[in-house]
Structures are given as structure tokens and as C-alpha cells.
């Protein structure tokens, strides 16, 4: 167990304050290169470009942005720097504190930001390359529109993570929401896509409202929106010391509410229970979008918000425990739903929701290293998984049903996709020595370490969920990629739009000699081309290499821990999470992890290890490696038994000979209606429809009646009075030249006469 030299909160913050420097202006290229792509692509749209130019513009700009980000990482890592592009808001209505609102269009670059910037720009570049091939069938139609929104998304996301104040964050937050909305509804002729876009928009609005209130409260209470000022403000420092000293009651309710509202915002954007319903539907968008926005980057904005504002979250006694519980519930619920789905993209969507739950739980267990590490690893392997699904969807004309696809591993040209999928699945299932394994372990271990309201119970739940995750992940893999070669084309094949394209594609890829036993005799799936394969290969390598991050600077528990040491996510929690850390305040060793805010300070006293939880009597950090491996492998084994192909391990496990039949069918039949309920997502949508939409309808009926009754009354007076005024004034607009001349001259005469009469 390593105990790192702990610093006090206050002095840590003071250090941060001292370290705030000015970043070089070339950093501005990072957000503005994507904006440049947007502008250029808009010009393409204006001039009716019907080539693939927009894709290359986007790739070029994003790659440039990524390169600059890497340069920035090399130059600025470990420091906190700000750079102001221009003064955005500079309102003041007095000289006092809180009487001026300063929000510059400026960027705040510390390690937390750099981390997000790197994987956002890096993944965006890769996915743009992927999309340039994936969206080929839309060249000349929506191609440019897609890349405009794509670039705008990256710009907004960078504003969100890089902004040096909450207003910038809010701007980026709304921006990514808008782009997500536009891209989900990309196929706007498909009613499902439009409905999904609308759903995402409305659900996100609830979260955004929370964020907006949170931001406003922050301003009202702290009188500033700038991180630099906020985190160094004596007021916040005072509250934090109050919490540390066990005077949590001294923190005013208002300050505590800020965290609660920000949390609602985070739940909306990061699809946490109960606001997660939009994310699975969002898969109606093009797959690159699902990979980038709805798996890797945008949905982690909520995590970023909590990590960034962690000092504020600590002020509230309730915020973090609520986050922990909600995260865990989300993880479990989504996993159960994922187990019963048949649409592979939806399974991935639910797994995203579930993994986001892990991350939230991780942050709430004060394992910001674990939470953020999981964000990064998840970004890589989930993007990989989605892109593999996308490749399948692309090749099989939109087919996503795992009952209708089988044996891709054995098909010509699909090997890279299969390997990519396998790597992604291994990561997601948490198989030992993958990146996903390490990051998940950190969270799980912390659940048992951290004292809190039923946190160890949550730990067990999360472990169980890990097993379920492994199961449904490999269910997909075994069903789709192994076993006999069988497939049915999806319905997109019949679309007249794509008809010519399909032929072209078939020609281009050659008529592979694979079997045609399916009834779509004329359908030739076309294997992904070089760009898709290249991206998949790159991502596979990256997903494997991500595990290595764990071994860089191990004394800080991996590279991520090293990075986070110099950020707001770290300020409140300086010690190493995987150890029985001490939180040293003014020379006193307190109970671990700053849980004073939860009112436990007194219990822990001076026993440095007193707070350290245990799992079955062992140190969680040690045994977690084994326990979670056991859970994960069990899940995989069950999946192999139920869905594995016949040939797998000489027939003992496995045994599926057809695409649509497996051993699980029998098991499911015995479970009664439960699998069906799970398949129907536990009827959450219907439940929402019942508890929200129905009462709304009733209320609206009532209001409608009242409205009808009072139609001539006061209610409509506001709209009625101006209308009557207008009716009165309308005869003046007689259309006759002389009438106008008369009215003008008369008006001038009367007005001037009255004015002169009154004042002279």
C-alpha cells in the first residue's frame, strides 16, 4: 500500500491558484480547427459540392486539432493554464462582489481538460475517417450536412471541456445537445429517427434545466462563474474547511443545492436513471454518431461536470451518495435490459448506459481516478464496439438482429471486424489484463473501501452487474461472429435509394464465394473497405494499449491518477485511491477520503485505516482483481454455454447450430415472463408514458375546459387586447396613397402640436 504525501485541501487549492498561468495562444487552434471545418463545409453546402470533400476537410481539421492537443499535452501537462480568446460577457451593474458577471470566451487547461481533449479529438478524427466511408451512400445528399454537424459537435464538446467558466460549459452543453439532436434525426425521413431526436431533446431539456439552475445558483451564491475565481474563492475554501472540520451544517443550503442541480444536469446528459431513456433510442442516428457522441464523448459530459465541480459536490451531504446509488441502479437496470435485447446496437447502447452508471458510481465513491480511467478506456472500446456494429450494419444493409446473423468470423473480409469486436468484448466484459478490467476494478474496489450509505452493498450489485455485462457482451459475440455462416439482409436493401449503390458495392468487393443458403439469394453483403478496417484496427490496438496506462506511474495508480493529481478532481482527494489512503488535514489524519462531508469524521478519528472497508475480510484492492475476474469469466462461460457455436471446446459448451436458436431459449422459457419484461425494457417507457404523459393529458384536458370557459375572459385578454388594438388601427392601413398621406400629415400635426403644447 502506498501512501502518497497528502496535502491539505486548502493548500492544494492555493497551489493550484499559484500555478494558473497563461497558455500559449496556439492552444486556441484546438477548438477553432473544428469550427473551421464547419465553416468550410457550410461553404461546400452553399456551393453545392457533391463530392467527398467535406469528409476530408473534417478529417484534416480534426487531425490538426488532435495534433495540437498532443502538443498541448506535452507542453502544458501538469500545469493549470488559461487562455482567453476574447471577452465574451463583461456585464457589471456595480462595483461590489457579485455585481459583475465576467465570462470570457476563454479556455482553462489542466490535466482533467487535457485528458478529455485528447480522447475527444483523437476519437473524433478516427471516427470521421470511418464516417467518410460509412456515409458514402449519402454523398451529395446529406453528406455535407452530416459533417457540418459533426464538426460543430466537436467544437461544442471542446468548448464544454475546455471552457474556463460555467457559461462556456453551458454553451458547449447546449451545443452538443443540439448537434446530438440534429444527428439523431439525421435520417429525418424516418419517423423513428425524428421521434428519437425529439425524445432526446425533451429528456435532455430536463437535465439542462437542472444545469441552468445550478449555474445560476453558482453565480448567485459565489458571484462568479469562472473556475479560476470560483475554486480559489475564500468562500468555497471556507465551506470546504468547514466540511473537513465536521461542521457540515455551516454550509448554507443554497451552496448544497448547487450540487444537486448540477447533478440533475449530469444525469440528463449522461443518461442516468431515470433520464436514461433517450440514449437507446438515439441509436437511430448514423452509427459513427452513436460511437462518437452517444458512447465515447458527449455522454461523458456529465462525468466531466462532476469531476470538474467535485469541490462543490463535496459541500452537499447528499449529492454524492445519490450519485452512487443512481449510478449503481442504472448500471444494473441497463445490464438486465441489455441481456434480453436482440438488436446488437441497442445492446451496446444499454451497455453504454450501464457503464456510465459504473463511472458515476466511481466518482461518487471518490474514486475519481477509477471513474475517469473508465471514461477513457470505455471511450476506446465502446467506440470500437459501435464501429464494429456499424460495419456489420453497413455490410448487411441495416441488419442488426443477432438472431439473423451468424458466423461472421468465417466470412471473407470480416476478420478485422471480428477481431475488433472480440477485443472490444473482452474489454467490456472485464477479462483480466484488459483495460476495461483495470478501470472497472478500481471502481469496484473503492465501493468496498469507501464508507457510505450502503456502499458495500452497491459494490456487490456492481460485481453482479459485471458478470451480467460479460454475459450479454459475449452473447453478442458468440451469436454474430461465431457459429455457422448465416445471414439475412436488413430492410435497407430494398430502399430504392440504395439500390444502385448496392450493386456498385457488390461489384467493388467482388462476389465473394460465401454460401447463399439464406432466402435473400441476391443479397451480397459487402465487407468493409480499407478506411473502416483501418480505423477498427487502430482502435483495437489502442483499446489493448489502454491497459498499459495502468502501469504508467503505478504509485499514483496509473497514468490517469498521475494526470488527475493536478486538477480540480484531485484537489479534494489527494491520496491514492487504491491504497488505504489518508486524508491529512492540517497535520491530523482523518478518516479516509474526505468523508467528513458525510458526517463520519468523528467515527474515524485518528485511525488511518479505520475507514478502510473490507471484502470478506480481505483488502478489497487486492482481492478485487480476483473476484471481478471470476465474475467476468463466469459471465463469459454462461454466454458460451448458451450461445456458443457447436464447435466451441469440443461441444461441451456451446452447441448452437443455427443463427436463431440457442440453449438460452429453453432457459428463458422457464423464467416465465421476466425475459419478456426485460426485453421490453421493464416497461419504463410505458411507465413514463403512464405517469407523465397521461396526467399531463388529463391536466391539459382540464385546462382546456377552463380555457374554453374563460375564452372571452381574463385569460385571453393578453392576447385579445393587442388584437383588438390592431383591429382598431387596421382601417388606417387602407392601402390608398392619400389616406396614408393624410394620416401621416395629421399624425405629424397632432403629435407635434400636443408635444409643443405640453412642453412649451
Amino acid at each position: 500500500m502506498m501512501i502518497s504525501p497528502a496535502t491539505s485541501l486548502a493548500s492544494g487549492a492555493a497551489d493550484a491558484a499559484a500555478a494558473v498561468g497563461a497558455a500559449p495562444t496556439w492552444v486556441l487552434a484546438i477548438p477553432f480547427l473544428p469550427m473551421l471545418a464547419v465553416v468550410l463545409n457550410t461553404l461546400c453546402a452553399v456551393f453545392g459540392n457533391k463530392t467527398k470533400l467535406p469528409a476530408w476537410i473534417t478529417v484534416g481539421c480534426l487531425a490538426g486539432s488532435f495534433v495540437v492537443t498532443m502538443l498541448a499535452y506535452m507542453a502544458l501537462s501538469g500545469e493549470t493554464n488559461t487562455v482567453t480568446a476574447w471577452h465574451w460577457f463583461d456585464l457589471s451593474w456595480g462595483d461590489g462582489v457579485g455585481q459583475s458577471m465576467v465570462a470570457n470566451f476563454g479556455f482553462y487547461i489542466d490535466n482533467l481538460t487535457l485528458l478529455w481533449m485528447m480522447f475527444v479529438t483523437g476519437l473524433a478524427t478516427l471516427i470521421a475517417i470511418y464516417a467518410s466511408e460509412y456515409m458514402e451512400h449519402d454523398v451529395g445528399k446529406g453528406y455535407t450536412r452530416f459533417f457540418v454537424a459533426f464538426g460543430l459537435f466537436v467544437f461544442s464538446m471542446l468548448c464544454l471541456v475546455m471552457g474556463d467558466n460555467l457559461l462556456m460549459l453551458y454553451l458547449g452543453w447546449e451545443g452538443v445537445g443540439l448537434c446530438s439532436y440534429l444527428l439523431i434525426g439525421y435520417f429525418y425521413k424516418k419517423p423513428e429517427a425524428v421521434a428519437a431526436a425529439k425524445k432526446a431533446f425533451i429528456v435532455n431539456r430536463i437535465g439542462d434545466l437542472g444545469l441552468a439552475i445550478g449555474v445560476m445558483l453558482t453565480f448567485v451564491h459565489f458571484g462568479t462563474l469562472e473556475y479560476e475565481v470560483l475554486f480559489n474563492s475564500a468562500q468555497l475554501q471556507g465551506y470546504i474547511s468547514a466540511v473537513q472540520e465536521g461542521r457540515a451544517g455551516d454550509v448554507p443550503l443554497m451552496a448544497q443545492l448547487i450540487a444537486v442541480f448540477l447533478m440533475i444536469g449530469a444525469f440528463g446528459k449522461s443518461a442516468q436513471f431515470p433520464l436514461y431513456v433517450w440514449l437507446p433510442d438515439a441509436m437511430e442516428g448514423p452509427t459513427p454518431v452513436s460511437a462518437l457522441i452517444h458512447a465515447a464523448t458527449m455522454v461523458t459530459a456529465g462525468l466531466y461536470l462532476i469531476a470538474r465541480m467535485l469541490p462543490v459536490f463535496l459541500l452537499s451531504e447528499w449529492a454524492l451518495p445519490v450519485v452512487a446509488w443512481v449510478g449503481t441502479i442504472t448500471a444494473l437496470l441497463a445490464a438486465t435490459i441489455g441481456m434480453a435485447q436482440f438488436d446488437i446496437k441497442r445492446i451496446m447502447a444499454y451497455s453504454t448506459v450501464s457503464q456510465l452508471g459504473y463511472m458515476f458510481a466511481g466518482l461518487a465513491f471518490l474514486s475519481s481516478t477509477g471513474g475517469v480511467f473508465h471514461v477513457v478506456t470505455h471511450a476506446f472500446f465502446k467506440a470500437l464496439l459501435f464501429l464494429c456494429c456499424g460495419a456489420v450494419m453497413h455490410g448487411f444493409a441495416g441488419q442488426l438482429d443477432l438472431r439473423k446473423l451468424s458466423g461472421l468470423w468465417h466470412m471473407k473480409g470480416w476478420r478485422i471486424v471480428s477481431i475488433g469486436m472480440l477485443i472490444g468484448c473482452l474489454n467490456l466484459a472485464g477479462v483480466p489484463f484488459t483495460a476495461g478490467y483495470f478501470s472497472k476494478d478500481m471502481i469496484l474496489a473503492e465501493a468496498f473501501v469507501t464508507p457510505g450509505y450502503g456502499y458495500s452493498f452497491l459494490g456487490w450489485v456492481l460485481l453482479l452487474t459485471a458478470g451480467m455485462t460479460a454475459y450479454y457482451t459475449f452473447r453478442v459475440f458468440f451469436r454474430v461472429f461465431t457459429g455457422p455462416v448465416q445471414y439475412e439482409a436488413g430492410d435497407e436493401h430494398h430502399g430504392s435509394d440504395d439500390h444502385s449503390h448496392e450493386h456498385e458495392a457488390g461489384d467493388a468487393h467482388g462476389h465473394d464465394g460465401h454460401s447463399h443458403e439464406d432466402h435473400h439469394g441476391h443479397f451480397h453483403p459487402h465487407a468493409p473497405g480499407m478506411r473502416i478496417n483501418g480505423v477498427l484496427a487502430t482502435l483495437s490496438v489502442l483499446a489493448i494499449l489502454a491497459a498499459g496506462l495502468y502501469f504508467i506511474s503505478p504509485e499514483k495508480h496509473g497514468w490517469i491518477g498521475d494526470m488527475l493529481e493536478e486538477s480540480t478532481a484531485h484537489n479534494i482527494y489527494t491520496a491514492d485511491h487504491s491504497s488505504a489512503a489518508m486524508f491529512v488535514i492540517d497535520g491530523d489524519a482523518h478518516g479516509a477520503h474526505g468523508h467528513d462531508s458525510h458526517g463520519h469524521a468523528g467515527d474515524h478519528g485518528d485511525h488511518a485505516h479505520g475507514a478502510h472497508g473490507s471484502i470478506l475480510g480481505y483488502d478489497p484492492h487486492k482481492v478485487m482483481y480476483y473476484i471481478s475476474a471470476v465474475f467476468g469469466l463466469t459471465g463469459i462461460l454462461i454466454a458460451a454455454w448458451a450461445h456458443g457455436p457447436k464447435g466451441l471446446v469440443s461441444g461441451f459448451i456451446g452447441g448452437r447450430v443455427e443463427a436463431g436458436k440457442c440453449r438460452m431459449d429453453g432457459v428463458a422459457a422457464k423464467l416465465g415472463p421476466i425475459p419478456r419484461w426485460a426485453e421490453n425494457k421493464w416497461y419504463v417507457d410505458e411507465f413514463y408514458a403512464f405517469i407523465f404523459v397521461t396526467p399531463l393529458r388529463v391536466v391539459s384536458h382540464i385546462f382546456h375546459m377552463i380555457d374554453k370557459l374563460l375564452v372571452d375572459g381574463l385569460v385571453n385578454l393578453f392576447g385579445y387586447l393587442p388584437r383588438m388594438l390592431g383591429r382598431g388601427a387596421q382601417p388606417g392601413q387602407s392601402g390608398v396613397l392619400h389616406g396614408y398621406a393624410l394620416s401621416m400629415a395629421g399624425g405629424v400635426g397632432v403629435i407635434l402640436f400636443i408635444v409643443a403644447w405640453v412642453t412649451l
Partner: protein
Amino acid sequence: MMTTLAQSGFPEAMTTLTLYHYLFISAVMFTLGLIGFITRRNLIVMFLCTEMMFQASGIALVAFSRFYLEYTGQVFVIFVLTIAAAEAALALALVVLLFKRNETLDGSVWSLLKG
């Protein structure tokens, strides 16, 4: 010793009472133009009325110029004349165009757009 404009360009200074005489003429002329513009339906006469209103301000300008013993007001009148000529050219061309379309000089028949 110097020569002033009063001695050189203008015969003598003007009293305020005399100035008012001219201004009264100018104001009445302006009013007449305004009334004519409203009451007459013939487009050409309407435009003549605006010319008269320009003329009224011309009188006022020259009278003030005389009162202040300087030439700026008169220079202003030159530009007023220029604008009057330019407006007249355009107005007459427009009237001809409209007459070709509608065979009438009545301004109040153009009343399709209203509300």
C-alpha cells in the same frame, strides 16, 4: 477697419420682424403644399405640391441666410434644387410608367395592397 458682409454682399442687417415676414410666407407655403399633397389625387399635381414644400424651405433658408449675413443657407438651396430636380426626374419617369400600365394619373387607384 474691415468690410463686413453687411456692407459688401448684403445691403444691411435684417430685423427679426422682417425675418418673420418671410418665415410666415414660407410656413404658409409649406402648409399649402402639404394640404395639396393630401387632397389632390393627380399624381403629377401631388408631386408639384412636394416641390412647393421644397420651395418653402428654400425661402426659409434664404431668409435665414440673409438674416445671418452669410451664404450657407443659399448654398443649401442650391442642393435643395438639385435634389428637387433629381426627384422630379424619377417621379415623372415613374408616373409615365404607371400611366402606361393603368392609363390614369389617379394616385388612389393603386390600393390593392392594404391591411
